[in-house]
Structures are given as C-alpha cells and as structure tokens.
C-alpha cells in the first residue's frame, strides 16, 4: 500500500487521570475513506481533535505528509497542519454567503485565482446555483456540501468529518451520504469520518477503525471487521451477536443450535460469537423451539430456544414460523467466530 497521508502512532490523551485516548494507532491513506466507529464517550471525538491539532497529545506522535505535527510538548496549530475539518453542526459562518464561506480559507490567493477555485468547488459539489445564498436559507444537505467544499478549498491532504450525517433526517441522510461520498472520492483526499452508527460506517468505509474505551480495537475492511472481529467487544460494536459458551472437541464446537468448525482450537471451553443471520433453516440441522417471531420486512427476527439457551436469529423468507413450533436450523460458519475463553 502507498505511504499513509497521516499516521497517528500510539497517541494518548489523559483527562483528569482518565485515558480519553489510550495508545491509539491509525493510518489514513489518500483517496480512501476511513471510519472511526465507537459508542459515544469512547474517545473517537477526542482522537479527531488530537489529529486536528485542537488538543495536544500526552504521548505518541502524529505525522502528516512526513512531518511530525503532534508530539508531547509540540502541537502544530490547526491552521498550519493542512487538514480540513467538517463539523457536526457544519459551522458555516452566518455573515458570509456560500461562495464567501468556501473562499474563507483562500485569503492568501489573488482574487482571480480564489474565484476560480471557489467556482471549481461549487461545481464539484453541485452548489453553483447557491453561490450567493446565505447559509441559513440552505437545507441541511446543502449546508453540508458547503461545509465540505469549504474544508477542501485549501486542498488539505486529510479531511476530518465529525458525525457529518447525524444532523440529517433519515431519508435525506442516505441520499446525501451517497452523493457526498461519491464527490469526496473524486478529490483523492484521505478522509476520516467519525461515527457511532455501525451500519453507516460499514456502508461508507474503505477502512474501519473500531474504538472503545479510548483504545482502537481493530482496523480493517468492513467485511474483515464484521466477519472476523478480533474480540467479542469488537464484534458487538458492529452489530448484534449472541455469545454462547461452547465446548470444543476434535476441532469442532458443539452448540445447541448447530456445530461450528474450529480447526485450530485446542479441546476445551470457549466462547462462540454468532451473528443473527448465521442461523438458517436446514432440514438436516438441529431441532429448536420458536419462542418469538417479529416480522421485519426484509427479514424476520426470530427468537429460538434450545437447552435453556436463547438466541436471536435473522431469517429471510416470507413464511413465518409459528410461536411454539419446532424448526430445524444450522449455523453458517462464515458468520460465527470462536474465541478462547
């Protein structure tokens, strides 16, 4: 892979004896979108602020384009780092028009070049018609485009976005997200998006960074992270999972809901992580009892019980099993993981 645009190495930030960020390591690459995912309070916003230079690091270092910009006792000011920042509330300047907002960071360019750059960005983000409008007259999606165009005006090597889609309504959110990301990819910038929404993160990211308790648990592509989480904690960040205690013998874990191959695991106690969609109807599978059925449109959420254990399954198909009925199921080994206990 290419040389990263930004590298954060073992950075920590301590607030009142609490590690808000603990030894986090993160690499951002040009033209790729990295999503930093974690529950609120996990330190992801702090990490973003450290990268942006809004706060000093207590240990570790951050390097942008080969230059160390943050290290203990050294913080290159946000304005001198060559980063772009997009805020959750967009933070458009209310006293400037759309075009002037976008041109705000281009103070040092001659007027003609500045105008040209602003025009390019307006076109790139489909904002030409709004150039002379005031920020408060724009819709949420339009405001966000302006905020992103403004942040990109100085051609930063890294663009940081803090929960950029959380201010948008449900339906709008998906459309805006899709078109904004398509536009963003054309710029070739390294992009870091902070979000707490796992589905959103998996949809938009080239690379995921899972964060909890100030630590980065795992980095990798969305399928890697989802299907092969490094720990139960990481597994839970990306979606529902049932954890069952299992016994391994002869490279196979036996669960009441089916068997899971565990070829490299020694015999003994272990934990199985089972995604809801790992369970499928299988006439050759094991019999389980249906405890509850919820129709969810594309799939059904079915609660199954066997040997005092319960599990939530997400099953496709339109014929609903009846509560109290017995059905046979098996497990898709691709969507299960065994962890040593």
């Amino acid at each position, binding site marked *: 892979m290419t040389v990263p645009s930004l590298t954060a190495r073992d950075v920590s930030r301590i607030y009142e004896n609490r590690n808000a960020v603990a030894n986090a390591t993160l690499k951002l690459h040009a033209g790729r979108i990295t999503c930093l995912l974690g529950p609120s309070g996990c330190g992801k916003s702090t990490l973003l602020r450290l990268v942006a230079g809004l706060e000093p690091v207590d240990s570790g270092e951050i390097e942008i384009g080969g230059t160390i910009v943050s290290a203990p006792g050294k913080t290159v000011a946000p304005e001198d780092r060559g980063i772009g920042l997009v805020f959750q509330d967009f933070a458009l300047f209310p006293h400037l028009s759309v075009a002037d907002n976008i041109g705000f*960071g281009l103070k040092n360019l001659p007027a003609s070049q500045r105008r040209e750059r602003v025009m390019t960005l307006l076109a790139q983000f489909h904002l030409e018609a709004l150039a002379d409008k005031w920020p408060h007259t724009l819709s949420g999606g339009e405001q966000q485009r302006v905020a992103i165009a403004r942040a990109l005006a100085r051609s930063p090597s890294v663009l940081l976005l803090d929960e950029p889609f959380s201010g948008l309504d449900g339906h709008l959110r998906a459309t805006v997200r899709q078109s904004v990301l398509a536009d963003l990819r054309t710029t070739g910038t390294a992009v870091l998006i902070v979000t707490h929404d796992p589905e959103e993160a998996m949809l938009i990211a080239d690379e995921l960074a899972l964060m909890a308790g100030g630590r980065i648990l795992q980095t990798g592509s969305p399928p890697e992270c989802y299907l092969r989480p490094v720990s139960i904690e990481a597994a839970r960040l990306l979606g529902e999972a049932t954890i069952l205690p299992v016994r391994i013998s002869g490279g196979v874990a036996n669960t009441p809901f089916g068997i899971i191959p565990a070829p490299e695991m020694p015999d003994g106690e272990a934990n199985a992580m089972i995604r809801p969609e790992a369970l499928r109807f299988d006439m050759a599978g094991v019999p389980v009892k249906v405890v509850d059925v919820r129709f969810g449109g594309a799939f059904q959420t079915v609660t199954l019980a066997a040997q005092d254990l319960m599990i939530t399954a997400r099953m496709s198909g339109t014929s609903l099993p009846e509560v109290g009925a017995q059905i046979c199921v098996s497990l898709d080994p691709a969507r299960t993981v065994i962890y040593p206990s």
Partner: protein
Amino acid sequence: MAVEAFFAARRRISIPFMLAAIAGLVALLPLLGVITTALFGETADIAARDIFRYAATSAWLALFVGGATAVLGTLAAWLIVMHRFPGSDIFAWALALPLAVPAFALAYAYTDLFDVAGPLRMTMRGNMGFDLPFGMRGLGGAVFVLSFAFYPYVYLAMRAAFLNQSVNVTEAARTLGCDGWLALYRVALPMARPALAAGVALAVMETLADYGAVQFLNVQTLTTGIVRAWSVYGSTVSAARLALPLLATAALLLWIERRGRPGRLHEAGNARWRTLPVKNLSGRRAWLASAFCLLLITAGLLLPVGWLLFNALDTSPDWTRLLRAGSHSLMLGIMGSAVTVALATMLALGTRRLPMAARLASLGYATPGAVMAIGLLVPAGIIWNLMPDSGYIIAIALLIYAYAARLMAAALEPIDAGLTRVTPSMIHAARSLGRSETSSALAVELPVARGAMLTASLIVFIDVLKELPATLILRPFDFDTLAVVANNYALDERLEQAGTPSILIILLSLPAVIWLTRKIAFSRPGT
C-alpha cells in the same frame, strides 16, 4: 462547556487574552483609586455621623424606589405580555421610552408643576379651595420622580422573563387546579423572580448613582455628598470615604443581578417553546389596562416633558451657550461610545479566555459615576502635576475613561449576546482554514457581532448624554455639556431656562431609545 474546555486547554497569552486583560484593568483602576484614597488618605473633613446620615437616606431612597419600580414595572410587563387591549402594541415599546428622559429633567418639571406657587396648586387653591398636602422637595418627591424614571428597567426585565416562560408550565399549573390568577401568583411570578431581582437591582443602582434629581430635590444621599465633598470642600478623601459604602452596595447589587440572569435556577429550559396565551381584554378592564400604561408613559415622559417644553417656549434661550454645550455632549457621546464599545468588544472576545475581566467590568457598571470620577482623581492629580499645560485634553480623556469604565458592562451585554451566534466549531473551522486565533476573531467573531456593537454604542450614547456627576467632577474648566447647563440653571432656580437643555438631551437620545426599545420589544426567544 466545550468552549471553556477548549480555551482552558490552550490558555496562553494570546492577543485577545491580553486585550481582555487590559479592558478589565481599565474598569478596575478607578475602583482601586477609591479604595486606596479612602483607606490611606489623610484625615477627612467629614464626620462619621454625616456619612451615616447620607447612607441612611440613600438606603431609604433605594428601598422605596426599588419597591415602587418593582410594582409598576411588573404590572406593566404582565399586562403587555399576557393581554391585548387598546394600544397594547404601542405601549409594548413606548413603556420603555422614559429611559430617554434624564431623572433630573423629571425633577425640574415636577417641582415646578407641584410648587406651592406653581400653576397646579394655585388653580386648586383658587377654584377648589383645597391644597395638596405635599411638595416635591424631599424624600417623597425623590421617590416619586425616580420611580417613574427607572421603572422601565424592571419592565424590560420582567417582559423578557414572561415572554421566555413556556406556556406548558402555566398550563400544567392550570390542570393542577390553579385558576389564571393563582397560576400567575404560584407559577409565573416565582419563575420570573430572578428577572425581578435583576430589574430592581438595575433601578436601585441608578437610584444610588443619581445626582441631578436628588440634589435638586434637596435630598442628601451619598452621591450628592460625594460631589459636594469634592466641589465645596475640595476633599477627595471625604468623597472617597463616602464612596466606599456605595462601592460595597454596588458589589452586592451586582451579585443579586448576576444571580437573576436567565440560565440560572428558574429558566424554562429548552422545553418546546410556545407563546403564552394572550387574553383579549374588553370593556372596563381593557380601558383600565390602557389607562395604567398611559399613566406610566404620561408620568415618566409626556407630562414632564410637555411642561418643560411649554415653559421653554416662553423663554429666550442662550443659544450660543446651548449649541456649545450640545456639541460637547455630542462629542463626548460619540467618543465615549466609540471607546466604550471598543473596550467592551475586546472584553467580549476575550471573556471566554479571561472570565474575570468581565466581572470587573460589571462592578464598574454598578459603581455610580461620582465614585468612578473620585477614583480617577488620584491618577488625574499625578498626570496634572506632571503635565500642567495639558489640562484640557487630559480632562476630556479622563472623562471618557470614566464613562468607559462605568458603561463597559452595559455595552458588553449585547455584544456578548451577539457573539453567542459564533459556535465553538465555527472558530475551530476558521482555525483549520488557516486563520490564527486573532485573525479568526477579526474575520468571524467581529463581523457577526457588528449589529450588537451598534446596539451597544447607542446604549452608551444615551447614558453619556444623561450623565451628570462624573462630568461635573472631571470636566475641564468652563466645559459645559447639556446636562451640566441644565443643572446649573436649575441650581440658580431658573427652571424655565433648565428646560431647553433637558429637552435637547431628550431629543438627541429619543431616536436611539425608540430604535432600541422597538428592537427589544419585537425580539423573541430564538430570534
């Protein structure tokens, strides 16, 4: 909170930080002057007994005016916010207009109107064979005059408080068994109590600071004592000792006023905000409400100003003197508001970095102008000794300094409010777009606060035009303002002559007052 955290994390000596510190020191210096003079000055010519007597009069005056303004202002605000009646839309902003009238002008007009040999009582004695049992000179008259001059402070504070209350709370009280009156008494009023305290504190601050009206009405307060100690006995130390209790009271009032700020205890919070239901009054109740509002405006503005005007028409004013004084007033007003707003802006931009500076400035606001002037006499004396020929310029500079130190907090308030439109993320955005801390303050914060700076300069302008005691103490020799001219005529018992400069002050400040009150009256939460 994020803002404070951000600035706390990187609190260092930046330019905005330095400027805020300077502005804070501007407000602090005269106060230090008063305290050091009072504590370390040589023996004063003033007896402790006199200080006590003056203080007692000031206390009574503050108590009565505070009570009267509380009742008048609250009633007016309650009528305006929750009712519709003939003229209520106009009364909404017109009720604040008496702010344009200097208290001393009210004193002149009412003293003349109610004089034993005045037109009113002559007519009464002649036609009705009966006389009023009181005159204006004395504590009662002063309470009357100052109450009508200062009720707008309570009115504006209570009006804002009632408008900010969420209807849900009142409706909850109604469903819990309170009728309309009981809901007002048990819910709306207690919720507005902090605003009431804040409004009354402002009225009392102004009462304690007043010189022109009480002096004319022969009431001996601490403030008149200060001016007299300095002008008659030439004793700065006596003046400073009289100023000490005022300074202590100012600090106390300030504390009360701060506690009453919205955002503290009783704020309705971010609950969904709906306008309070407005009750349409009809018949006798409607006319009573109209009459009450009209009475306030008549007593605070129409009657006294009309009477001054009526009398002034009979005189041939000394226009050369008035024009000179008018140009001085205008010059001081413009320069004073420019300097004050500049300092207040420095303070506002730096408050997030140095909250202490703003608190110092507020103490200046609570401090009467006379006290401020006495505090400046010590540094002034040093400068005069060093540069005896620069008297005029130094005196003007000191005068403007006194206005700025006193009014900085009044100007700070709207500017601060204007700056709340700049969210922390906007500043971060500006920083990430290549602007330094100072540059982002200039490119983002200043332009956003521009409208608020205009508001602030008008507030300062009006107050400078009406200012008397500090001007009397610090002005250069033979330098009159309209207020000084009016005061001099009045002291010579040439009341009809005092009318014209008073009216000129009102004419100069009325457009600004109308602009401000309409702006306040039509602003609503969230706009």
